[in-house]
């Protein structure tokens, strides 16, 4: 091929705006099973997608990544078919790529910065990341990085969610002894109890936890720090502590009838299904009810997860009840689209004000108000305003309240010297994760309030660096 020909081909490549779709289970099939919805790129699709990347000299995508992954770098490996090189490049910055490739809101982060974005042809970075992580796992060639010389220092990590797992994985490689304490019987935090199987298979989470275990991290489950032992007691044995206990305290609306049977927090509903495998009842022992009309209150990812779970449990009608309009839904677009395709009915500009039940204390109806959008509020979104007298009823036999979570007060309330904010979050330095108390670091949702998996991982990484510097 002449030099000229090569240039023409390069140019043609640059103009390729066809984002490669990721194969998915069809909606009418997946709405009745718990298998993963998105099936992942094939190697061929991954390479085709990677080849569209323009390899910008000053890549803007990286600036959109909370953990600074060398995105053009790993993509260039994929272009060459060097998948091992690609995953290695990602793992320099992100130890949970199979998770973040699935649940990161890439459309708001790396992909939103892609130069092809304004032509609607941004590179599907998350899908390529996911492909590499799954390829590595399938290849069985999991590369274990070399471990630094033993430092003789001990670190306790409280919580085995994305922040805690990241801290543990980083510090063990830096030569420290690491123990992770998890209150539940299975590690993974929100990845295990919260995000459903069909969006993040538990085998993927187990793989990531097993990986840090294989590096030498000890994971102690069924251990509630603050109860089984306090942070102060742990400080007698450990040189430093990282607190990554997340945001696990569910909010309710404090409206009449909220304690009727059949009204769940999203945490309860999802924990029954995910952690306790309620969808397998009765072969798993934790009971779940069969509901026919389920209303999920809220518009975030957790609401979508709950609604889609309810469909899969056989509900005839599932509603998302959200007080703002469709445009303000905080859920990832992909998730709300998936929900809609599967048949979830969106009742937007709707605010529940009360629940009424039957003589046995089971919820039967929800009373709602219609809303309209007013001026933008503190969040920058147009504020929902009640339409007076617009009350109406919806028949339901279950309600899932998915309006948010705040941090669990267990550790702040049992540990002296930790400054907390009005929202119940721990005060910690944004760059280092250092709390207001010596030898204690924190990161993830316990510091930021409910946020994303990747931000928690990023915070974990920064804290690990700071802890290491302090220990050395």
């Amino acid at each position, binding site marked *: 091929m002449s030099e000229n020909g090569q240039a023409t081909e390069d140019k043609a490549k640059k103009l390729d705006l066809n984002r490669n779709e990721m194969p998915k289970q069809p909606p009418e099939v997946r709405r009745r099973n718990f298998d993963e919805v998105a099936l992942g790129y094939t190697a061929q699709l991954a390479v085709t997608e990677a080849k569209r990347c323009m390899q910008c000299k000053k890549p803007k995508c990286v600036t959109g990544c909370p953990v600074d992954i060398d995105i053009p770098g790993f993509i260039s490996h994929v272009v060459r078919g060097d998948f091992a090189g690609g995953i290695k490049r990602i793992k320099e910055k992100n130890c949970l790529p199979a998770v973040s490739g699935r649940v990161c809101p890439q459309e708001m982060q790396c992909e939103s910065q892609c130069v092809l974005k304004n032509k609607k042809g941004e590179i599907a970075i998350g899908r390529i990341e996911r492909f590499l992580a799954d390829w590595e796992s399938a290849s069985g060639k999991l590369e274990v990085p070399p471990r630094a010389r033993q430092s003789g220092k001990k670190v306790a990590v409280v919580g085995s969610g994305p922040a805690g797992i990241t801290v543990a994985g980083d510090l063990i490689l830096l030569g420290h002894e690491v123990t992770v304490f998890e*209150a*539940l*019987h299975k590690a993974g935090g929100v990845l295990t*109890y919260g995000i459903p199987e069909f969006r993040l298979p538990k085998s993927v989470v187990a793989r990531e936890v097993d990986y840090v275990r294989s590096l030498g991290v000890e994971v102690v*489950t*069924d*251990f*509630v720090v603050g*109860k*089984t*032992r306090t942070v102060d007691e742990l400080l007698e044995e450990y040189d430093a502590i990282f607190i990554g206990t997340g945001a*696990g*305290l*569910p909010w*309710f609306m*404090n409206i009449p009838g*909220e*304690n*009727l*049977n059949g009204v*769940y*927090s999203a*945490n*309860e509903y999802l*924990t*029954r299904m995910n*952690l*306790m*495998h309620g969808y*397998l*009842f*009765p*072969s*798993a*022992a*934790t*009971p*779940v*009810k069969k509901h026919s009309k389920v209303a999920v209150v809220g518009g975030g990812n957790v609401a979508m997860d709950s609604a889609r779970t309810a469909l899969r449990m056989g509900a005839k009608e599932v509603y998302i009840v959200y007080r703002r309009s469709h445009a303000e839904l905080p859920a990832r677009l992909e998730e709300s689209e998936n929900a809609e395709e599967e048949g979830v009915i969106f009742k937007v500009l709707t605010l529940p004000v009360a629940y009424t039940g039957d003589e*046995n*204390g*089971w919820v039967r109806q929800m009373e709602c108000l219609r809303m309209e959008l007013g001026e933008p509020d503190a969040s920058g979104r147009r504020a929902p305003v009640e339409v007076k007298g617009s009350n109406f009823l919806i028949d339901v036999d279950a309600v899932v309240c998915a309006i948010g979570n705040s941090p*669990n*007060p*267990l550790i702040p309330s049992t540990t002296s010297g930790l400054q907390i904010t009005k929202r119940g979050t721990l005060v910690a330095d944004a760059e280092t994760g250092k709390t207001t108390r010596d030898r204690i670091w924190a990161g993830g949702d316990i510091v930021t309030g409910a946020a994303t998996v990747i931000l928690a991982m990023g915070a974990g990484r920064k804290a690990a660096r700071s802890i290491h510097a302090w220990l050395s």
Partner: protein
Amino acid sequence: MNRVVERRMIVPNLHLLTLEAPEVARKIRPGQFVIVRPRDEGERIPLTAADWDAGKGTLTCVFMEVGASTGALALLRPGDTVPTCVGPLGNATDIGDYGTVACVGGCYGIGSIYPVCKELKRAGNQVLTIVEARSSYLLYWLKELSAVSSRLLTVTRDGSHGAKGHAARVVELIKEQPKKPDRVIVNGCTFLMARVSELTRSLGIPTFVNLNPIMIDGTGMCGVCRVTVGGQTRFACVDGPEFDGHKIDWKEFLARRKAYMEEEALLTGRSARDEAVHQEGKCQS
């Protein structure tokens, strides 16, 4: 993983379970509970502590066999293990020097009131212990309770041991005391706790109950254990389990406890085919 030291039926349908749980035994206080999972894929069941030995690192609970999961616990033998025993959870019973405290126990609560009596007596209180059961053969630990009480009374529905009657008779006994108790603490089935609370209200005696709602995580995460206390929603696992019995919305509490009765029946039906379950003495509350 926790090894089973002992598991035996102490009276029909009530079992004593002693587990190796050194971390829990070191920390637990009267009124607190643990969550036990009888087997993989098993339910998480809250059990109130009845006794412990920090030195030996063991924890003892008394539980009633009511469904599939407690049925699985009831089949454990020494040397077996349970995958989960986590705790101590919840807040401990307030132990102070109140003067005279009436401690009331029924079914599993005869076990869990024992450490409460013990600590209250140690704190200098006059401890009047009243235990209640359907019949004499369902009473247990009378010797142990007697040792940690100033006085021990029994109430049976058939009159086969002590006074004849039920919850109302318990309150009558409290009322008949020469000196009105300064506080009443009740551990047991919902009926007993609700009824005693209802009857002590007019007597003006502060009454505290140790609630036993359905739980999953037991650390404040799921909110299934919500209970309305004084018009406010509280989580029994982290705000309780002990609450002012006069302020609890008992009707709501009872309805929430019964939420999964049909599913329980389905499971118990299944396990009855594979495993021996004890049908006798089911508590209907």
